[in-house]
C-alpha cells in the first residue's frame, strides 16, 4: 500500500499546486467537480492488487514515478503520421494542437478547455467512481469536445494523441466528450503514439453518449512508446436503437489498460466490443470490459484476442451485467489467448451477473499455444515456419478484427499488426 500512497500523493500534490491554473480553475462548477474527484482519489489512491478489479494489473511501476505536466512544445517540430481521414483532431501531450488539426465543419468539434462552459452538465455525467476517472477529472487539461447534430452522417474523423519526449516523466489526462445526436453517425479512429524511450502516462477518459438510433464506430489503436503507460477508460451510454462499436488494439506501451464501460440504456440498443492485444517482451496489457444491460431487447457481442510473446503478461476481465429490466437480452463474449512463449502469462476473468430470466447469455474463454498439426500442414505445403506461424496468428485474430469495416481503420490496424509481428514475434 505504501508505494500506492506515494504515487497517489504525487498526483494530489500536482492538483493542490495547479488547481487554480487548470482549465475552469476559477469556474465554480468545474472547481467543485475537481475537488470531489480529488477527495475520491485521496480516499482510493492508486488501486493496489488487493482491489478485485486490479488483481492482475500492478500499478506500482506508475506509483513509483513522480509525474509532472508537459511543457508547451512548438507544434511545427512534430512530424505527424499521414492522415487517414479528411478531418483530424491532434492532441500533443494531452493538449489540443489547433495548428495541426483540421476540424470538420457542420459539426461541433473543438477543444474542451476552450469551450468548458458549454460542457456544463455533460462533463462528468457518465463518470464511474473509479480511481483512474477521478485522477482524470482532477487533472485534465483538455480533450476533444465533439457533438454530432441529430441525423447527420459525419463520416470518418481521426483523433491523434502524441506524446513528446521530455526529460522527466510526464502525465496527461485528456477528457474527451463525444456526443452523437439522434440518428447521427460517426466513425472515430483514434491513434495514440509516443517516442520509444520516453516515460509518460496517458490517462484518457472518454464520455460517449449515443442518442436514439445513432451509431458510433470507435476504433482505438494504442501504439504508445515502449516505455509509456496508458490507462484508458471509455464510458459509453447507448440509448434506444443506437449502436456503439468499439475496437481496441493494444500493441504499445509498457503497461496498459483498456477499460470500457458501456451501458445499454434503451430498448434495442446494441454494443460490439472487439479487441486484439499484442503483447511482447516486457509488456503488460489489460483489457477490462463492463457491459451493463439496463434495458430490454438489447444485444451485445464481445470478442477479444490476446497474443503473447517473450516475457509478457496479458489480462482480460469482462463482465456482463443483466439487470432485472433487461429481458430478452442477447449477450455473448469470447476471449481467447495464444501463447507464443514459455515466459508469458495470461489471466482471464470473464463474468456473468444476471438478474433477468428471459436472457441468452454466454461467454467462452480459451488459452493455448499454436496448434502443431496446423503448423505442420502449412509447412508440408511449402510455407516456411515463420510465415506459417504469422498466418496462424493472423487467423487467430480474424474474428476480433473482422468487425473493423472502415477501410482506413482496417488499413491502420493491419499495418499495426504486421509491424508488431515483424518487430516482436517473428
Amino acid at each position, binding site marked *: 500500500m505504501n508505494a500506492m500512497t506515494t504515487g497517489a500523493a504525487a498526483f494530489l500534490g500536482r492538483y493542490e499546486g495547479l488547481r487554480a491554473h487548470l482549465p475552469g480553475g476559477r469556474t465554480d462548477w468545474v472547481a467543485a467537480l475537481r475537488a470531489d474527484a480529488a477527495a475520491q482519489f485521496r480516499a482510493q489512491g492508486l488501486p493496489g492488487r488487493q482491489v*478485485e478489479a486490479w488483481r492482475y494489473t500492478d500499478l506500482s511501476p506508475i506509483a513509483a514515478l513522480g509525474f509532472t505536466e508537459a511543457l508547451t512544445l512548438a507544434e511545427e517540430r512534430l512530424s505527424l503520421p499521414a492522415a487517414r481521414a479528411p478531418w483530424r483532431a491532434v492532441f500533443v501531450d494531452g493538449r489540443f494542437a489547433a495548428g495541426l488539426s483540421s476540424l470538420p465543419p457542420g459539426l461541433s468539434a473543438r477543444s474542451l478547455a476552450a469551450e468548458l462552459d458549454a460542457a456544463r452538465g455533460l462533463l462528468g455525467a457518465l463518470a464511474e467512481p473509479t480511481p483512474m476517472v477521478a485522477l482524470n477529472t482532477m487533472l485534465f487539461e483538455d480533450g476533444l469536445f465533439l457533438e454530432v447534430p441529430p441525423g447527420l452522417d459525419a463520416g470518418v474523423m481521426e483523433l491523434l494523441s502524441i506524446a513528446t519526449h521530455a526529460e522527466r516523466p510526464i502525465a496527461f489526462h485528456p477528457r474527451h466528450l463525444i456526443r452523437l445526436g439522434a440518428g447521427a453517425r460517426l466513425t472515430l479512429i483514434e491513434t495514440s503514439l509516443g517516442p520509444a524511450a520516453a516515460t509518460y502516462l496517458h490517462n484518457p477518459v472518454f464520455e460517449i453518449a449515443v442518442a436514439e438510433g445513432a451509431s458510433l464506430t470507435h476504433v482505438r489503436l494504442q501504439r504508445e512508446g515502449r516505455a509509456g503507460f496508458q490507462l484508458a477508460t471509455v464510458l459509453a451510454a447507448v440509448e434506444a436503437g443506437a449502436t456503439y462499436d468499439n475496437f481496441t488494439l493494444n500493441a504499445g506501451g509498457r503497461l496498459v489498460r483498456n477499460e470500457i464501460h458501456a451501458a445499454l440504456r434503451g430498448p434495442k440498443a446494441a454494443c460490439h466490443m472487439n479487441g486484439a492485444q499484442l503483447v511482447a517482451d516486457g509488456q503488460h496489457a489489460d483489457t477490462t470490459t463492463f457491459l451493463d444491460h439496463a434495458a430490454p431487447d438489447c444485444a451485445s457481442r464481445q470478442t477479444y484476442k490476446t497474443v503473447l510473446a517473450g516475457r509478457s503478461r496479458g489480462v482480460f476481465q469482462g463482465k456482463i451485467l443483466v439487470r*432485472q429490466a433487461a*429481458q430478452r437480452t442477447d449477450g455473448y463474449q469470447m476471449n481467447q*489467448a495464444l*501463447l*507464443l*512463449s*514459455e515466459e*508469458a*502469462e*495470461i*489471466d*482471464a*476473468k*470473464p*463474468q*456473468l*451477473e*444476471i*438478474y*433477468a*430470466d*428471459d*436472457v*441468452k*447469455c*454466454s*461467454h*467462452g*474463454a*480459451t*488459452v*493455448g*499455444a499454436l496448434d502443431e498439426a496446423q503448423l505442420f500442414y502449412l509447412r508440408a505445403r511449402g510455407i516456411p515456419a515463420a510465415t506459417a506461424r504469422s498466418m496462424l496468428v493472423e487467423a487467430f485474430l480474424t474474428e476480433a478484427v473482422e468487425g473493423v469495416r472502415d477501410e482506413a481503420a482496417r488499413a491502420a490496424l493491419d499495418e499495426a499488426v504486421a509491424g508488431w509481428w515483424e518487430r516482436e514475434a517473428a
Partner: protein
Amino acid sequence: MPAVAETIETVQSVQEGGYKWGFETDIEMEFAPKGLNEDIVRFISKKKNEPEWLLEWRLKAFALWRKMEEPRWAAVSFPPIDYQDAHYYAAPKQKAAPKSLDEVDPELLRTYEKLGIPLREQERLQGIAVDAVFDSVSVATTFKDRLEKEGIIFCSISEAVQSHPELVREYLGSVVPQADNFFAALNSAVFTDGSFVYIPKGVRCPMELSTYFRINAKSTGQFERTLIIADAGSYVSYLEGCTAPMRDENQLHAAVVELIALDDATIKYSTVQNWYPGDAEGRGGIYNFVTKRGACRGARSKISWTQVETGSAITWKYPSCILQGDDSVGEFYSVAITNNRQQADTGTKMFHIGRNTRSTIVSKGISAGRGQNTYRGLVKISPKATGARNFTQCDSLLIGDQCGAHTVPYIENRCLSAKVEHEATTSRIAEDQLFYCRQRGLSEEEAVGLIVNGFCREVLKELPMEFAVEAQKLLAISLEGSVG
C-alpha cells in the same frame, strides 16, 4: 429410470410438502457452555480424551482464528454471526461409547430410520457402510468388520485419533492448514467429529462409504472434520448426506474435508447437501461454510468431487484439487439450486502443478424464487505443468425474474503448452420445451422438474445410483413453488 414417472412421483412428494427432514429428535443431550474461548477448546479436547499434540494443534488454530477476519468477498450476504452465541459441543448423552448398534440409543436409530438411513445392518442400504454423525459426535459406523478384513479403516475421526494417531498426525491439516481461511481455522480449533478413512495400498474398497450428518440441537454449530487417505493404487467412493431440523435461527456448519490420493489412487467424493434452507421468507436455515480440498499427491492419481447442493440458507464452498502428481486428474461436477431466499456461492479451484495434469469442471446452477446462485472457480496452471488441460462448462438456468445467476471464473495460466477451455451459458427454460411437455400432458411443475433434471444430467450421472435417485427427487422438491 423412466424420467417421466420419476418426475411425477417427485411432484407428488412436492405436493405433500416442504422440508420433510425438519423434525427434531427429543433426546437427552450434553452441551458445552455457550461461547468460544481457549477453555472451550480444552473442554472439547478433554471430552475426546485427545493426546497433547492435538490439543496444541487446536490451540494454535484458535490463536490464528482470533487474528483473522470473517471473509466477505463471496456474493452472499448475511447478518453478523455472533460466534459467542452458540454451543461448540453437543452430544447425545451416553454412558460409554457404543460397541455395537444394540448399545445405541433407540431414539437415535429411529431418527436415522426416519431420515432413510437405517443403521441396523439388516436394514442397511445395499452395500453402503455408514458413519452417522449426530450434532457433534459420530453415533455409529456400520460394516466395520467387513471393511477391517480388507485393511480398510473407516471410523469416526475421534476414534482414529485414539486407534491410528500416526496416520491422523501425518495427514491432518496437510491439505487444509489451520490458517487456510477463517472457517477452516475455526473448524481446526473446535472440530468435534467426522469421518476417517484409510484405504491401504492396492485395495479397491468393496462398498460405498458414507457419512450422514445431522444437526439436531438448537444453538449449535457443527464442525466436523473428514480425512480420507487413499494409499497407492487404491480406490474409494465416499458419499456424504446432511439434514437438519427446521428452526428459525441460523446455524453454522463449518466443516473441513481433506482428501489425499497417492500414486494411482482414486477418490470419488459425492455430496448431497440438504441442510434446512430456511423458510420462504428467508428465516432460519443453515450457513454452510465448508472447506473441501483434495491433494492428488501421487502420479496418475484422481480426485473427483460431485455435489448436489439443494439445501442451506447460504452455501459457500469450493471443493478443490491440488494436482501435484504427474498425469493426475481432478474433476468437479456440481448442481446447485437456490430457491426462495437461498444464496449459493460455490465452485472449485484446480491447481495444475504436475505435468500432463487434467481437470474437468461441470457446473449447473439453478436459480428460482429470490435465490442468488454464483459459480466461482479458479483454474491455475503453473509453468511446470506442461501439457496441462482444463475444460470447464458452467451453465445457469433462471426460473422467474426475481432471482440471480452469476458466473465468475478465474483463469491464470503460465504454461505455454497448457490448454484451457471455458464455456458458460445462462438461459431460462425455453417456452417451446415447456409447451411441448405440457402438450403431452405434463403439468407445468412436472415439466419444469423434467427439464431441470435433464439440465443436470451430466452431473447426476456421476453420482452412485442410490444417491442419484435421491438427488433427482431433491431437485424437484427444492424448486417447489417456483413455477406459476
